[in-house]
């Protein structure tokens, strides 16, 4: 490992914090309303004329501005950006998984050490009453599936006793408690968003449980849909080139984080006959991985005419088959 890469890793160690904070909102079931984590959301626009917010560290050589293309062994070197939005909520569970987890939950409850309510709740407090009510409700519902024979008999006794207790408790619980309990209840957002229903492929708030990738459409017939990509200049590195191309094609209204300075894959192809020249016969695309945390793509209608945030499986319908063949192994199935 080169020393430069090593030094970069040390820097990246600190900045890796960012992706976690964004996906900290992953919640089983749905996204709670109250979670507020990001300063900027996906839809908030950035101030105009600001540079792209990312972790690209410009090397000193790039200060010398040169628009000359980098060509190695008759192939133009191109940098592409695999820009992904990570899952925001937990994945959907299969019916079997749901059953399995419910069963395990009941087993765990039955085998757990006894809970000392008198330790955790003050006698006669609202919290204690509320807990007793919850416990009585749970037992009355008979949710406790039991694993051992000794326990099953004891829990049956408990459930019959629980119904008696719950009727007593009903009298004790005042209106005040009920209001407090209602307030304490967490309200969940829907797992299916407005963008999902409208099939808005441009929205970053679609398919919350999946990894989404940015593809852009260029104004041409063949190979129109691609990852954002463009030629590397003579004096810049792949990361800088990918960042520059993203800014040129998709605008600067995005907060990005590039995962390292090493490409995650490459795609080599030859130009069609009419484009071929003496010195340049084809191109080699190196893909750089990045995450988006805020902002959105801005279409300028010059370099790109459209964009979409798609999952790996949906991408198949957009890009050319040979292109998909080349990039599919870099992408996440989930």
């Amino acid at each position, binding site marked *: *490992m*080169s020393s430069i890469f*090593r030094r970069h*890793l*040390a820097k*990246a*160690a*600190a900045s*890796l*914090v960012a*992706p*976690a*904070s964004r*996906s*900290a909102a*992953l*919640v*089983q079931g749905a996204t709670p309303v109250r979670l507020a984590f990001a300063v900027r959301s996906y839809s908030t626009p950035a101030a105009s004329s600001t540079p792209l917010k990312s972790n690209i560290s410009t090397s000193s050589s790039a200060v010398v501005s040169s628009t000359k293309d980098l060509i190695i062994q008759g192939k133009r070197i191109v940098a592409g950006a695999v820009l992904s939005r*990570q*899952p925001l909520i*937990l*994945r959907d*569970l299969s019916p079997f*998984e749901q059953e399995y*987890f419910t069963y*395990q*939950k009941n*087993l*765990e409850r039955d*085998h757990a*050490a*006894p*809970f*000392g309510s*008198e*330790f*955790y*709740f*003050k006698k006669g407090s609202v919290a204690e009453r509320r807990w007793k009510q919850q416990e009585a409700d749970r037992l009355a519902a008979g949710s406790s599936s039991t694993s*051992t024979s*000794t*326990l099953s008999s*004891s829990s049956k*006794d*408990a459930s019959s006793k629980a119904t008696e207790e719950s009727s007593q408790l009903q009298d004790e619980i005042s209106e005040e408690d009920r209001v407090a309990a209602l307030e304490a209840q967490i309200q969940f957002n829907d797992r299916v968003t407005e963008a999902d229903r409208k099939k808005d492929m441009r929205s970053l708030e679609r398919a919350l449980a999946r*990894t989404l990738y940015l593809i852009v459409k260029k104004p041409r017939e063949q190979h129109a849909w691609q990852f954002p990509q463009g030629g590397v200049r003579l004096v810049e590195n792949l990361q800088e080139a990918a960042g520059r191309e993203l800014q040129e094609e998709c605008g600067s209204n995005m907060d990005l984080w590039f*995962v*390292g300075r*090493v490409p*995650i894959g490459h795609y080599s192809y030859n130009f069609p006959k009419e484009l071929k020249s003496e010195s340049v016969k084809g191109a080699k695309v190196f893909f750089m*991985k990045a*995450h988006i945390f805020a902002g959105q793509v801005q279409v300028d209608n010059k370099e790109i005419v459209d964009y979409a945030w798609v999952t790996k499986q949906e991408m198949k319908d957009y890009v050319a088959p040979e292109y998909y063949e080349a990039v599919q192994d870099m992408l*996440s199935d*989930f």
Partner: protein
Amino acid sequence: MAALTRSARMALTSSSLQQIRFASTKKVATSKTSSEDDLITLPRYKEYSTGVSRLREHYRNTVQDDLMVLTYNHSFKPKAKIPEGVRIELKGNKHIKPAPKAPSPTAVPELVKIDVHCMMKEALTSKFNLLSGFMAIQSITGEMPELINSKKGVHPWKLRAGNPIGCKVTLKGDKMYQFLDKLVEVVLPRMKEWPGLPESAGDATGNIGMGFPPSAMSLFPEIEQNFDMFPRMTGFDVTFTTTANTNLEARLLLSGFNMPFQQKSRSAPVTKAAAPAAAPVSP
């Protein structure tokens, strides 16, 4: 406190931890005066996965892939194997580091376990003083701690070999991720004036440890709710054991879980460069 800590008391008095007998839920709820004969023995704690773990999913979806990209050694050369029977001279007292593994998708650093450990000096005077720390560790981890008896006696401290002096919990699987989640989302952000883990954190073999003062214990939501019930707060250590080979990989992994690390201020070199520019130019 009596009912809940009864099992803990028994742990202190019983000779072997494997033979702890739990009181059944019903017994505790109905009668406090049950004799020991009525206790039933439950199977030893087994781990149940009761749902999809949030941080584990985050690891599988995001952190694992990113770590693969960030730590992949593109110019890996396996070290020559030392033939059997050849003795290696150590430089000073340093350990021999394990040879770096070949990069592969299966060798991406992963969190293996978290140890939560506390040692209480108060246990020297009476072993029952340990109960407070025992209960606190049990509350924050959700697992029954293991008692730690001193291996050696230390005369100046009045410590005799074999006396209970601390307790420890080893967390794995879902419970480990739950604890890490709680630590990172609730406790660490509320620790005022804690600058984060130092950049040099790690034991050079991929494990990271950190210590907490007694004041940090009360920041856990489980303790905060009934702080008055604990007679004395204790400091504790948390050790993260990972499959990483180097400090750097271990720190990358933990920072992927949002663990704060100290960062050298990047503005420092800028101001240095700016200072001469701002100064009047002399020929």
